[in-house]
């Protein structure tokens, strides 16, 4: 009964006119920021942060939270239409979302990811509503050894998700980790791999890396190959967003599995949405009877991860509100709003500030419904972007990438890094190395090293610790299985694919094609 009372209290708070308005404002802004490549959620929240001093803490949080999950909705748009992931979590959506757009199913992909986002978020909110105190306690049982094991599992799983050799996937992950270590060591403040460039103390910019390896490399590959005329004009009409019955049937379980995984990872500070999205993709590919469809526009490949990262976005509030431990810089900003208004986050928050806690949770529902209503009509507008001739579109996209990279730190070094990573991304395309695992390795690498080193201190130098602590041992066991499975199945599928590739190659070399054309890749 008390529970229903709490819900009613929360709804009462969320449905005041002022809170509804700021919730809408946050969601709208979040969507816009998410769609513009290179602009991060942190930038958006920092910009609006000062406004929050003049608002009630609940209202302020409702607006900032709206931006936070709004960007995740919007972030999938650029991933699907342009192969430009705004965050590592969205990089997974590129894998199948972008092929869907190329097949003229961009509208369906956008519509379905909106549905998946809504589903995942709802799932996360339900957990948040029912189990916050319990979950907060269990999150504390994860020590450094467990975090290291979890990250290792995430990285190994990510290396198996892309089409092609698991060895290349692992190599991409490892290169990503090395790039992540550039800058000052978080334990001893030793500067590593910066080669005297003091601008690199802070490390490599995530935006520059993502935009370079994905966006710039994609543009280099697509110039003079993509024609607006290739896009079926029917595919950009509003009715083309309606998914087929088959799409819907295939989507249920991926959404459910994704939401569960996302909810779990969201509660662990620091790891959150990206690991959840990658693992969800890996799992969908494993359980699928037709894994070869993945990477070629499989709807399961976008539904699982999008549901996972949105669920994680919601459950990330659990450690922030109930332990006072923010999982990310964005969550730290939200914590800042609470503290400025004299609200102390911690185990007692729910009992001392019931209006704030329940009002915020109910506003999540309102915000997600607003996002659903806001995003579906916008899909029609976004897919029209595909009809812009590519020779006009790509320079504009490059410009947005550069401005975005520049504004994340106001340093031209970030733009130089975009160019450098564009070259790296292009080289990786030539050598057929997957890009998504690189991004995850980059994000998790420094954290992984930190937890590894700390776990070793706590175990007094005994490597067996990862197999002796029960939770960590189970995760390490799963990691081992994923690794064996990944290598085995990729070698297995390679055989089949090579046969197909050889057939294609033979076609291409048929009379009428000069050697020159084949090399410049006019196919």
């Amino acid at each position, binding site marked *: 009964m008390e529970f229903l009372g709490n819900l009613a209290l929360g709804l009462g708070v969320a449905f005041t006119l002022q809170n509804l308005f700021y919730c809408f404002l946050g969601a709208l802004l979040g969507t816009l920021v998410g769609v513009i490549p290179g602009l991060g959620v942190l930038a958006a929240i*920092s910009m609006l*942060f*000062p406004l929050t*001093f003049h608002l009630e803490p609940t209202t302020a949080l409702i607006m900032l939270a709206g931006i936070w999950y709004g960007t995740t909705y919007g972030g999938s748009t650029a991933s699907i239409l342009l192969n430009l992931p705004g965050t590592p979590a969205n990089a997974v959506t590129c894998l199948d979302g972008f092929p869907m757009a190329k097949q003229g199913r961009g509208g369906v992909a956008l519509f379905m990811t909106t549905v998946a986002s809504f589903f995942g978020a709802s799932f996360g909110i339900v957990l948040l509503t029912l189990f916050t105190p319990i979950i907060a306690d269990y999150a*504390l*049982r*994860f*020590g*450094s050894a467990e975090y290291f094991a979890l990250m290792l599992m995430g990285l190994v799983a990510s290396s198996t998700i892309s089409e092609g050799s698991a060895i290349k996937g692992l190599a991409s992950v490892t290169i990503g980790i090395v790039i992540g270590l550039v*800058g*000052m*060591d*978080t*334990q*001893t*403040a*030793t*500067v590593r791999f910066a080669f005297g460039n*003091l*601008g690199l*103390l*802070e490390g490599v910019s995530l935006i520059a890396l993502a935009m370079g390896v994905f966006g710039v490399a994609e543009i280099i590959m697509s110039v003079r190959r993509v024609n607006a005329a290739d896009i079926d004009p029917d595919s950009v009409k509003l009715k083309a967003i309606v998914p087929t019955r088959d799409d819907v049937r295939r989507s249920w379980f991926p959404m459910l599995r994704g939401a569960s995984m996302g909810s779990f990872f969201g509660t662990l500070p620091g790891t959150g949405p990206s690991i959840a999205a990658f693992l969800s993709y890996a799992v969908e590919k494993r359980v699928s009877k037709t894994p070869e469809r993945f990477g070629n526009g499989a709807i399961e490949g976008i539904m699982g991860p999008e549901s996972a990262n949105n669920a994680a976005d919601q459950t990330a509030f659990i450690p922030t509100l109930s*332990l*006072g*431990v*923010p999982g990310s*810089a964005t*969550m*730290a900003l939200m*914590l*800042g709003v609470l*503290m*400025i208004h*004299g609200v*102390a*986050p*911690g*185990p*007692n*928050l729910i009992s001392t500030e019931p209006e704030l806690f329940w009002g915020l949770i109910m506003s999540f529902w309102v915000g997600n419904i607003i996002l659903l209503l806001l995003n579906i009509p916008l899909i029609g507008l976004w897919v029209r972007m595909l009809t812009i001739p590519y020779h006009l579109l790509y320079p504009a996209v490059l410009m947005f990438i550069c401005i975005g990279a520049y504004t994340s730190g106001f340093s031209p070094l970030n733009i130089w890094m975009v160019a450098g990573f564009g070259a790296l991304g292009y080289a990786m395309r030539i050598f057929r190395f997957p890009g998504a695992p690189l991004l995850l390795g980059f994000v998790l690498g420094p954290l992984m090293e*930190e937890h590894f080193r*700390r776990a070793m*201190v*706590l175990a*007094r130098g005994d490597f067996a610790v990862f197999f002796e602590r029960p939770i960590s041992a189970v995760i390490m066991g799963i990691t081992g299985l994923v690794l064996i499975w990944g290598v085995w199945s990729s070698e297995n599928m390679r055989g089949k694919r090579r046969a197909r590739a050889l057939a294609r190659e033979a076609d291409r070399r048929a009379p009428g094609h000069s050697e020159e054309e084949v090399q410049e890749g006019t196919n």
Partner: protein
Amino acid sequence: MKKMITALALAAGLATPLAAQDWPSGTVSIVVPYSPSGNTDILARHMAPYLEEKWGQPVVVDNKPGGGSMVGTAQVSQANPDGLTLLMTTSAYVTAPAIQPDLPFDPRTDLVPIANVGYVSYILLTQGDSEIDTLPEFVEDSKENPKFAATAGLGTTTHFAIEQFIAQSGANFDVVHFKGGGPAVVAILSGEADIYGSSVSSAGDNIASGKVKVLAVLGNDRIDALPDVPSTAELGYPETEIHQWVGVFAPGGTDPEIVAKINADINEVLQNEAFIATVTPLDWTLEQSTPEGFAAEVDKELSGWKKLAEEQGISK
């Protein structure tokens, strides 16, 4: 369209060098070189709205944790000396260089001290459900069952404080570094570490809710925020004066007029009744300082800690 042109003209105008009277011309970011929800972070977030009101520009707190505060500190040392990027850090500024010889900046010249904000005492925390209730029992027990002592990072004052206590008490503690007071307190909550020399505000709500237990105040006297907790001197350990101060710095080469203005504004906030009322329960003792006086203090402490580190053999 008219607005556009105005914006264009304004933006073009911003490119010219700034004089102190125009400062601040934009968002001021205060870099805190620790994770969120630690002591310094909380203080910075409490101060930010007051400074924002004074300066009429947004004031944003930016966490850059790692390297026992040296990661964020090094970044500010490289920032534009326009007064728009400031550093709010702890006495780690003077302790860390004592044991981290190869820092990419010189703490004496690459940053300018602006103002000393105040200081807090250290309290020794352990798990709330621990069977041990007093510090002497805890130290005795550690000789049978070695304990892990958390710090807010290598070379931070919490690191020095606990090393000093280990040397004085003969306790068997192994030191584990975290990225600030927030994560160190979580390590106590989760049982990963057994003891942490924390500030009252880092421990936050967890003292009241009984999730952590305060064994002692590290120093000669009890503190007003926790009147029932004995000090280590009272418990028979050698007398020691160790505090963690917090101060504000700017990149080296910042216009002295801007430094003086920021110093004056901070001093004013530190006298604001409402601000004092929010931070005193967190055990803050606030100071008034001049840039010159603070700089002299920093210079003296840099040499002092270096000597102490050598004497006591504290190193990486």
